[in-house]
């Protein structure tokens, strides 16, 4: 019970109107295994929220349940409610494809399509039937927002696979932006990148925050401290019933508070490097 007090008392709720994207008592299962247990939290609009915690704490699993990417995994199931604009995204009449258009995702490893740079960006608008006067303008806009335009403007017809890892990841961000989502989920977007490329992505996230709500899973606590407005700390907890380990939300609050003045002992231990 202790684990939710910080959320339920409202002590750390976002200042801005929130509730655009929120979890209410969410459990995520893989078959009979419960990977995430009873998570409730709301993500602030135009804020960056970092999900941190040790391996196996369910943070990536939770992230994937926020835009129904878990649907692609056999046996994955979500209980509780994940709401977007007040609507349960797992509701009967909700189309997972529409959910994913509104809530985009950037993956751990850059995964550009084996197509040209231009076609990578144009793919999302095309499959969604988004009508634009000029696809070139849209591509330029997306690449500019992702801080990649200057580097690729002369080679839009070349394969995206010729780009460096950091460029590929920014391309994937540009690709996501091109379908004009409201929320961007990022699953350890820098873990395959070198420090310089990582810094560029972090700068980019700062800029993107003005227009998008961002949720980022990261293993890198410094990164969370650098980029996130709010941080949620998760840990793996042994279920007393069957002995399985399951991910729980320990503490959620402003990043400065989480890192400088955590209220939960486990958060403090993790932040200070005593475990994890």
């Amino acid at each position, binding site marked *: 019970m202790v684990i939710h007090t910080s959320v339920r008392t409202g002590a750390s709720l976002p200042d801005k109107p929130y509730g655009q994207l929120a979890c209410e008592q969410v459990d995520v299962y893989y078959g009979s295994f419960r990977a995430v247990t009873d998570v409730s939290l709301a993500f602030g609009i135009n804020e960056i929220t970092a999900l941190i915690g040790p391996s196996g704490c369910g943070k990536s699993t939770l992230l994937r349940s926020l835009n129904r990417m878990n649907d692609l995994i056999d046996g994955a199931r979500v209980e509780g409610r994940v709401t977007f604009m007040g609507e349960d995204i797992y509701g009967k009449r909700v189309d997972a494809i529409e959910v994913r258009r509104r809530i985009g995702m950037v993956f751990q490893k850059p995964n550009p399509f084996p197509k040209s740079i231009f076609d990578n960006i144009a*793919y999302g608008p095309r499959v969604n039937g988004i009508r634009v006067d000029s696809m070139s303008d849209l591509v330029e806009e997306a690449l500019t927002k992702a801080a990649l335009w200057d580097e690729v403007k002369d080679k839009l017809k070349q394969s995206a696979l010729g780009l460096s890892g950091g460029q590929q990841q920014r391309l994937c961000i540009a690709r996501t932006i091109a379908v004009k989502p409201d929320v961007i989920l990022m699953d350890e977007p820098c873990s395959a990148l070198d420090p310089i490329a990582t810094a560029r992505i972090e700068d980019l996230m700062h800029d993107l925050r003005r227009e998008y709500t961002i949720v980022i899973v990261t293993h890198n606590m410094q990164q969370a401290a650098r980029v996130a407005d709010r941080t949620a700390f998760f840990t793996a907890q042994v279920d007393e019933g069957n002995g399985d380990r399951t991910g729980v939300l320990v503490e959620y609050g402003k990043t400065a508070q989480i890192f400088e003045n955590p209220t939960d002992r486990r958060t403090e231990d993790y932040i200070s490097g005593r475990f994890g």
Partner: protein
Amino acid sequence: MTTQFAGQLEGRPRPFDVVVRLLFRLAAVITIVITVGILLALLLPSIGFFSEVPITDFLFGTRWAPRFADASFGVLPLVTATLWTTFIALVFAVPLGLGAAVLLSEYAHWRVRKVLKPILEVLAGIPTVVYGYFAVQFIQATVLKDWLQLPTGSFSVLAAGFVMGIMIIPTIASISEDALSAVPNALRQGSAALGANRMQTTVRVIFPAAVSGIVAAIILGVSRAVGETMIVALAAGQQARLVANPLEAGQTMTAFIAQAALGDSVVGSLQYDTLFAVGLLLFVITLVVNIISITIVRRVRKAY
């Protein structure tokens, strides 16, 4: 100090490694020798043939009658029959084979795939003589003539081509499925995260990414169709004449070779040598198909 350890890194004799390396080398050499041998066996009698029959008469002549008194060696009738049966086979096998591959790779639950794929591959193990009888007895006699009342005789390139298509479906489906399954899941997820549905993901991302494997599958299908003998010998007929429509009978290059090889031509005679000339042409056609396909694959290939 240093001398104490000297020699510790020197190699020891490994007789087993030497033997294994020799065996592998032997296997490679034998394969090459056999290939070259076949090529020579085709080339040498063909030289004899082309010293008597001008190559243009052979390639562009429209009458194939090597055994008649007024012998004629225009190979086009055989080529048209081969083209028809191969074309018809592909018309059926490519859509069905690729459809089956997409179903297995992109749509079917893994448990379904585990059952279906081996069953599909069993089709490839049926002897072609069985397919041949199926083509001539059921497809030609029952389906085309009795049920559909089509104006056709006892044989047709349509029946032979259709059944040949069925025969190569597993080849195309199985290899294409391997190519599709080899595309990393990260691309499927990336596409889904942009709001693409499964069909869009398959057609626009997975298919282009797997295109080299898919083309290879189709080419293998073409090669099998061009080289297939039993089905066409049984179902397409043995009359060598230009085939204008698929309901006609016709003798393919392979069917001619089978017929002539069973015949009583005197070794070294001109009739005997025709066999090798046709065989050589078959070899060249397959080679050209392969070269074209490799070129196509190189051009459109998109590595992931």
